[in-house]
């Protein structure tokens, strides 16, 4: 505690000069169900500056930004913009005042086109009619700003999470706001997309836009922010100039104690094969995927967003159907025709889209965790709440989930939702565990917990596949890394060979694909829509 207090005292205080320019929040507080989640937070956002907001999962970052954006009403505190009181009662008030939020959870209308999603709520008209050419043209420009090549005319349904995150950012930019809050935009983005966003932030700052940037990637924060603000348990515990603080100090402020990163190398894997994939192909999506994962091995999948990694692992887990290929688990050929047969074969997959595929946000955390395992947990065909709770509580302790598991999981913070999702697939020990973007939106502490869990699992003989857009993560964890681009497997690199440069070079390897990557919509198989998944 003392460390933090010292840190807090040494910080530079933005309000000291008494200048009222910018968006100034004073004493914001908020309680849910009588439990305070924000306790008097002060944040000063100057035009043309970037405030990095950090904090553990559940610290109150999203709550703060929701208050500023008029989505959630504060229980206390006040805000001013350029000295004028700012009291947004609804999101549109915030937008009118030039405050835009890029939400942590992506929110799209799947049926509408990309351009319409960007201009939703204020479609430009010409002579009273929607000016379609204009919105398509403008949408394309905004999309290009964030580095997206998505056709603005296509419906959002069917786009990957990353593509949707880009649209979400384009939507905020198109509002031409004076203040923008980025709530973990990079969580769903790959590195090059993130770089686009940074470039865009730089350009925005030059033009006097005030920015709040929330992220768990602390290097990123240091890279973009001018000042860094840290929340812990709903209270402000630090406010520093970005260049005056080290990553370790940030971590210490976040978790409230000394914190050591363990970058230990994984223990060697065994020689036994956990999973073997041969000639796996799916027309128009990926082809010729061949690899083995040994027991005890952590096997990474690297590649750019859209390379087809998710499609491959979904197919292995039975979420999608392959056209060709052979899969065996621990030497036994398995025929995986749906997720159930994947689970029965010992393959568990933590999907990348928490909201659409991972968790039922309206049900409790405990119910989500035990959902796939209820048959096994029941005795004489009966499953009791006690059993569900007990199972969930064990995993809560195991994964250090902060938050209650008997309330709808949707009201947990993003990072804790991710842990619940992971817990769901650890109830029974899988033979093969597939993790697609396992640390999306997870704080450093939790990340370490998850990494350690992954390593510990591998050490018990589980074959683990990690798909991640964070190069550092995938390289740091894995024994070997498979690099994909354009739906093809480019190489499998050993830990020693897998330098960031080598992986990037392969990921960018410019081999044109003969088939268009979009899912065969008119074919027999269903295609997936990340936001609203439909029936199979």
């Amino acid at each position, binding site marked *: 505690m003392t460390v933090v207090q010292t840190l807090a005292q040494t910080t530079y205080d933005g309000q000291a000069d008494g200048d009222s320019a910018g968006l100034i929040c004073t004493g914001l507080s908020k309680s849910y169900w009588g439990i305070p989640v924000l306790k008097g937070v002060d944040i000063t956002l100057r035009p043309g500056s970037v405030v990095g907001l950090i904090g553990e999962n559940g610290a109150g970052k999203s709550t703060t930004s929701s208050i500023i954006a008029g989505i959630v009403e504060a229980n206390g505190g006040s805000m001013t913009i350029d000295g004028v009181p700012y009291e947004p009662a609804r999101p549109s008030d915030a937008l009118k005042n030039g405050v835009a939020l890029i939400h942590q959870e992506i929110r799209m209308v799947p049926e509408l086109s990309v351009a319409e999603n960007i201009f939703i709520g204020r479609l430009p*008209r010409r002579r009273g009619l929607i000016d379609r050419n204009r919105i398509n043209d403008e949408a394309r420009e905004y999309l290009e700003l964030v580095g997206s090549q998505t*056709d603005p005319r296509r419906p959002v349904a069917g786009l990957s999470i990353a593509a949707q995150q880009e649209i979400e950012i384009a939507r905020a930019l198109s509002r031409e706001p004076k203040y923008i809050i980025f709530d973990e935009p990079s969580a769903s983005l790959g590195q090059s997309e993130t*770089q686009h966003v*940074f470039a865009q932030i730089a350009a925005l700052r030059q033009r006097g836009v005030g920015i709040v940037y929330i992220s768990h990637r602390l290097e990123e924060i240091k890279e973009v922010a001018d000042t860094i603000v840290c929340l812990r348990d709903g209270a402000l515990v630090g406010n520093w100039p970005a260049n005056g603080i080290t990553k370790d100090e940030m971590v210490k402020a976040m978790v409230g104690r000394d914190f050591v990163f363990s970058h230990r190398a994984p223990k060697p894997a065994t020689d036994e094969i956990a999973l073997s994939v041969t000639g796996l192909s799916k027309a128009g999506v990926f082809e010729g995927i061949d690899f083995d994962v040994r027991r005890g091995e952590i096997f990474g999948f690297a590649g750019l967003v859209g390379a087809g990694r998710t499609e491959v692992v979904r197919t292995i887990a039975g979420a999608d159907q392959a056209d060709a290929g052979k899969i065996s688990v621990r030497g036994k050929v398995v025929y995986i025709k749906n997720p159930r047969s994947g689970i029965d074969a010992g393959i568990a997959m933590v999907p990348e889209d928490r909201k659409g595929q991972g968790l039922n946000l309206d049900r409790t955390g405990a119910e989500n965790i035990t959902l796939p395992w209820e048959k096994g947990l029941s005795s004489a065909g009966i499953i009791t709440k006690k059993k569900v709770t007990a199972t969930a509580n064990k995993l809560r302790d195991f994964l250090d989930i902060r938050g209650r598991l008997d309330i709808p999981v949707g009201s947990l913070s993003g990072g804790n939702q991710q842990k619940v999702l992971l817990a769901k697939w650890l109830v029974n020990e899988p033979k093969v565990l597939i993790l697609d973007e396992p640390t999306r939106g997870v704080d450093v502490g939790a990340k370490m917990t998850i990494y350690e869990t992954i390593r510990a699992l591998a050490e018990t003989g589980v074959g683990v596949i990690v798909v991640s857009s964070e190069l550092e993560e995938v390289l740091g964890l894995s024994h070997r890394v498979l690099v994909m*681009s354009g739906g093809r497997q480019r190489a499998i690199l050993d830990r020693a060979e897998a330098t960031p440069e080598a992986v990037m070079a392969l990921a960018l390897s410019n081999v044109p694909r003969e088939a*268009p990557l979009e899912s065969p919509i008119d074919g027999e198989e*269903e295609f997936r829509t990340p936001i609203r998944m439909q029936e199979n």
Partner: protein
Amino acid sequence: MAIVDRNVTPPRPDSTPAHSEIAPRSAASGNTSRVRQIMSQIPGPLIGLIVIVVALSFLSPYFLTPRNLLNILSQVSAVGVMSVGALLIILLGGIDLSVGSVLALSSMSMAAMYKMAGWPFEVALVAGLLVGALVGLINGILTAYGKLQPFIATLATMSAAAGLALFITNGNPITGFPDWFVAITATSLLGIPIEGVILVAIFAIAAFWLKFRPSGRALYAIGGNEEVARLSGLPVRRAKILVYTIAGILAAVAGLLVTSRLDSAQPTAGAADLLNVIAVVVIGGASLAGGSGSLLGTFVGLLIIGVLNNGMSLLNVSANLQPVVIGAVIAAAVLTDRKSSRRHT
């Protein structure tokens, strides 16, 4: 201050290779998507409709006569007018069970004001439309502000409106309207019955609104994801109230058509139309979950139902078997609609 400013393009860090790699792919998919876009403009159940029409043309010599086709148009006019309102509501993810009762109530109110209270007919007519609007408004308020599930809100107004329609005259029909009013459904405009013209005009106006006007387009956004719509500053509640009110007015218009056709206002008119109205919209490819559906599709759905009923009459299919045939044909027609079957649960 514009963010998109051609002079200040932000430096794009070393990402060009990645993008150039994606470029050919998106070009390729551009074509596919164009084709798909055009395909998606064709309402799915159209194939079903065409098959039914071709079959009936062979089965009955009277089916393809101009006279019969115009009859079909006027036969579907009341249900058609109501189905426009129903589509709008269904787009929002709502449902309106009260249409049939509103038809009866507004028609009876109009007639009562004219014949019983002695108001001038034109005033009574407007009052009848206002009654429809009022019930719609109540639906809208219960749904948007009372936050009742639309099913319950409109179930309540359905029941209440049906009762009131009967209450006005204790079940008696009211007859005897001005000639010009009766003539509406007995006159042709360039060979097309006026009610058909009204029907098509309402479809066209509504389709235009949905496609080209932001407030119409907003229905898709609200039905597709209400939270996004709200966060984007769309007036969700106002849209709901507006749409339910429009549906109420359209039910009243349908009531006028029925009243004019029979020269008689009947308290039980429209009661049997509810399922037809919703069926038309759903057969037309709209999803009851909201956010998807089109007026073109609804029109096709309307014709499927209209043509089927007409064809059965022409062929003198046994009355008991008619529902069996209709059920089978609906299922078959929609099963062929691969697009919508893929999309929804």
